[in-house]
């Protein structure tokens, strides 16, 4: 029997957001050129949910008035949402640090090839998914041929200064290729750096090791393969109370393509909205703290070394 996640949080302060919210994470759409096996958003080429410019205007209003330090743009492939470049430009003009979570494969598609230069010109931090440093393991999760394209795009970003120039950070995201927890982030980062440099002459800044959350397409995979209960138990047994303080939900607000508000992207997938105004258009200009909405999937963020969209937390 797995106890409710909230019951594991002894300190009531940790059930609320921190005094200052740092990150406004915006999931601008479910459309994606890929359909990865681990995607909690179940994104793919046939998805039609895309953020409108009107909703983006509310995002920018809240970004400015709440004085978020970072605008974290994700998807889907966020590049496929109309007005994506406008959102990035306005975010930068607002003085926020803008990061884009890209699958990189999209940057090789017609109509998107100019984006590496666009990112470099605006000093956008690029966070790219690369589940492993070998072709076989990577393609199994993300689709045939994706690894080679990602490597080519990393080389292109490196040529533009990414990973080398301090105003152009390039981070990679590892996530396990199945029903197991991620390795030690620092050790894996060293290994990625050694292998990618030796094999492909690719450099990057940080590796984020993210635990797979048992929702969306990954949750379906667990159920289909008979791994669901064992994985839930694994997350629960690896509960690390030291990871509670750094849970990303305490420092961010997450907006969906339709403006719906959540504590994180995983709560979006689990359809677990914030306890407070339901849509970004309903938010005032004064920052507000909130009680966090927890579900059993939150054990993924406190297992072992902890996990967040920025990697390990404990």
């Amino acid at each position: 029997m797995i106890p409710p996640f909230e019951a594991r949080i002894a300190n009531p302060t940790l059930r609320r957001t921190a005094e200052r919210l740092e990150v406004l994470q915006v999931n601008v759409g479910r459309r994606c050129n890929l359909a990865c096996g681990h995607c909690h958003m179940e994104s793919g080429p046939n998805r039609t949910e895309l953020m409108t410019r009107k909703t983006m205007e509310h995002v920018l209003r809240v970004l400015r008035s709440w004085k978020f330090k970072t605008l974290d743009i994700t998807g889907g492939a966020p590049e496929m949402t109309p007005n994506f470049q406008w959102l990035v430009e306005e975010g930068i003009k607002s003085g926020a640090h803008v990061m884009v979570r890209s699958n990189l494969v999209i940057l090789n598609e017609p109509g998107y090839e100019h984006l590496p230069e666009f990112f470099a010109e605006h000093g956008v931090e690029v966070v790219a998914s690369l589940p492993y440093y070998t072709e076989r393991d990577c393609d199994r999760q993300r689709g045939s041929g994706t690894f080679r394209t990602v490597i080519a795009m990393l080389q292109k970003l490196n040529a533009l200064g990414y990973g080398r120039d301090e105003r152009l950070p390039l981070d990679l995201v590892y996530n396990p290729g199945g029903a197991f927890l991620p390795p030690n982030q620092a050790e894996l980062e060293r290994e990625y750096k050694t292998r990618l440099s030796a094999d492909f002459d690719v450099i990057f800044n940080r590796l984020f090791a993210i635990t797979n959350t048992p929702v969306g397409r990954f949750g379906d995979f667990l159920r289909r393969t008979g791994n669901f209960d064992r994985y839930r138990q694994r997350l629960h047994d690896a509960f690390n109370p030291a990871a509670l303080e750094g849970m990303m939900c305490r420092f961010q607000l997450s907006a969906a393509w339709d403006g719906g508000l959540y504590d994180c992207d995983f709560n979006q997938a689990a359809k677990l909205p914030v306890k407070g105004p339901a849509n970004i258009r309903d938010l005032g200009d004064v920052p507000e703290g909130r009680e966090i909405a927890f579900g059993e999937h939150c054990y993924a963020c406190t297992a072992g070394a902890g996990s967040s969209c920025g990697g390990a937390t404990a």
Partner: protein
Amino acid sequence: MSEKNSYYDAADLGNFAAMGECAPDLWEKFMAYYGAVFESGALTKREKALIALAVAHAVQCPYCIDAYSQSCLENGANEEQMTEAVHVACAIRGGASLVHGVQMKNVVKGLSM
């Protein structure tokens, strides 16, 4: 003993601690030692997990194969590395049989005219 259709049950691995019931001191000493062995030291946790996987195959322990396949993955090893580790176990087991053939040769030599 209750009737079972197998000597091995995957759920039994979770009951390993039952071995501490009648000999708690020995169990605690073993577990403390076991934990210390798998901490990173001169060898990394990943290297130790791969050695454990190879040994698990050599001793053909299904519990250990289950536990250390997962441990290898959670320490960043891939299937290629794990397969090579199993081949190391296989080579040593096979080699151990084959090298004993020298004893056979010695016996034959001793008995032959």
